[in-house]
């Protein structure tokens, strides 16, 4: 291995660690500002509406199609073994434990994360954050913390909606289209899905994903270079970093929650 390549790898690792450290310090700043941000609860509610309610269309549409695809694919695989009766069970477990939280988080990063980054980045570029500082208003408490909280609240709710639409999609394909018995579909699902180990663990995952995506989105916006190019790069980094971190955390959490 050449010295230049080694130096490049070391610099890459150092840069990655520095980024993680910077996100960690920013998270501490947000946590310290949380009590002050509770005064701005209206802003938090507005952000929950903006990141949550405004993401409903894409989450519902994607949830429906993911469920329909799952229904088709799993019906085909299960029919090989003569086990199509387990369609409801397999679809719901896939959605609750993995696909629901992960796909919702990826969609959330693309829809809400980018808009949070772009909004805060433009506030930085147009001196709105500096103006708040000059009016003795802490932008971390007024801008960053409400969006962070909104991500934590909105993500699990969106994941639940995604799961519901996914199961509905699978039901449409499996029962209404392919002729699987309706009672079999639901009874197998309810008998094999455990609320605590399957549903609640999925909710915990989506809470963690919401926190991570919101933290990355807010951090990228807050620290963006105040130029058009800077905002463009920041929004791209939000999607890239969020996707990688969500999948990595998913692996770690799955290993612990299994």
């Amino acid at each position: 291995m050449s010295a230049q390549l080694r130096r490049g790898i070391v610099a890459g690792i150092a840069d990655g660690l520095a980024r993680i450290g910077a996100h960690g310090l920013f998270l501490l700043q947000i946590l310290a500002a949380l009590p002050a941000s509770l005064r701005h609860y209206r802003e938090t509610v507005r952000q929950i509406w903006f990141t949550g309610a405004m993401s409903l269309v894409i989450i519902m549409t994607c949830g429906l199609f993911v469920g329909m695809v799952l229904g088709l694919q799993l019906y085909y695989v299960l029919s090989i073994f003569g086990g199509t009766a387990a369609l409801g069970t397999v679809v719901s477990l896939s959605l609750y434990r993995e696909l629901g939280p992960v796909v919702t988080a990826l969609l959330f990063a693309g829809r809400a994360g980018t808009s949070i980054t772009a909004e805060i980045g433009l506030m930085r570029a147009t001196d709105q954050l500096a103006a708040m500082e000059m009016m003795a208003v802490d932008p971390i408490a007024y801008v960053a913390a409400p969006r962070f909280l909104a991500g934590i609240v909105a993500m699990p709710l969106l994941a639940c909606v995604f799961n519901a639409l996914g199961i509905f999609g699978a039901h449409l394909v499996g029962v209404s289209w392919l002729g699987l018995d309706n009672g079999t579909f639901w009874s197998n699902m309810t008998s094999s899905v455990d609320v605590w180990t399957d549903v609640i663990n999925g909710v915990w995952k989506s809470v963690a994903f919401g926190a991570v995506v919101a933290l990355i989105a807010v951090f990228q916006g807050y620290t963006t270079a105040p130029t058009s190019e800077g905002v463009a790069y920041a929004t791209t980094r939000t999607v890239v970093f969020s996707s990688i971190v969500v999948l990595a955390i998913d692996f770690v959490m799955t290993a612990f929650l299994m």
Partner: protein
Amino acid sequence: MQVRGLRTVLGRKTIFDGVDLDIPRGKVTAVMGPSGCGKTTLLRHLTGQRRPDAGSIRIDGMDVTGLSRQALFELRERIGYLFQNSALLTDYDVFENVAFPLRQHLRLPEEIIRNIVLTKLEAVGLRGAAGLMASELSGGMMRRVALARAIIRDPMLILYDEPFVGLDPIALNQVLRLIRTLNDTLGVTSILVAHEFSAVARVADLVYLLAGGKIVAHGPPQALRDDPSPWTRQFFGGEADGPVPFQYPARDYAADLGFAADHPSAPSAAARQAAATTRAAEPRA
């Protein structure tokens, strides 16, 4: 306000090299200077947005350079700051922009907030625009809304960062009149940084000329206009070259083009001869 021995270095460039300022209470003081001389950086130092490398800044007896974030915020509650680009909150309408500092710091009944905001908007002539969004305003109107927001809590000090940039003559006159009127009626201290001497001369009591990292001249506008120093003559006369050079510092021009014999990238004598021969042999268009 008193500034002593201010020194700031950004990268390899020295922005301030021992700047001293005395800002009299209740007057309009202008800080002028060529682009890039550090006028906005000076305002950032005065408000604690950026700490200098050395020197002291005393406002109302407090040294801004040593204040904690909490103490800085308490000081800023008594300071109004007009940003060059107005920096209005784009999610809010004019009324909410002006009401923003009140809502954040005081728990007042809605009726009182409404009255205070409308009073300030009336002072800047925009009471009728209270319901408009920031994106619906012209540059001059945005500047006036930002001014109403800056004075909403009756500050002791107002800082104006390039308040005349991009304004048409009507808006310029409106802003000039507002600065003078607000200063006289509210009894505040005003500091403005600007390039436009004709505008500054109409409103300022005292002018500091900042160039080359130092204060090179100061005094009342009329006295400064007649000052014989090369700095003031170049700045107020609008001369393209002088103590503030036309050329950004660079290495030797001939060497940059590769003509100096001692430059490493300069072509050898033989190569120059060959190039000249080639050029002579080429057909003219």
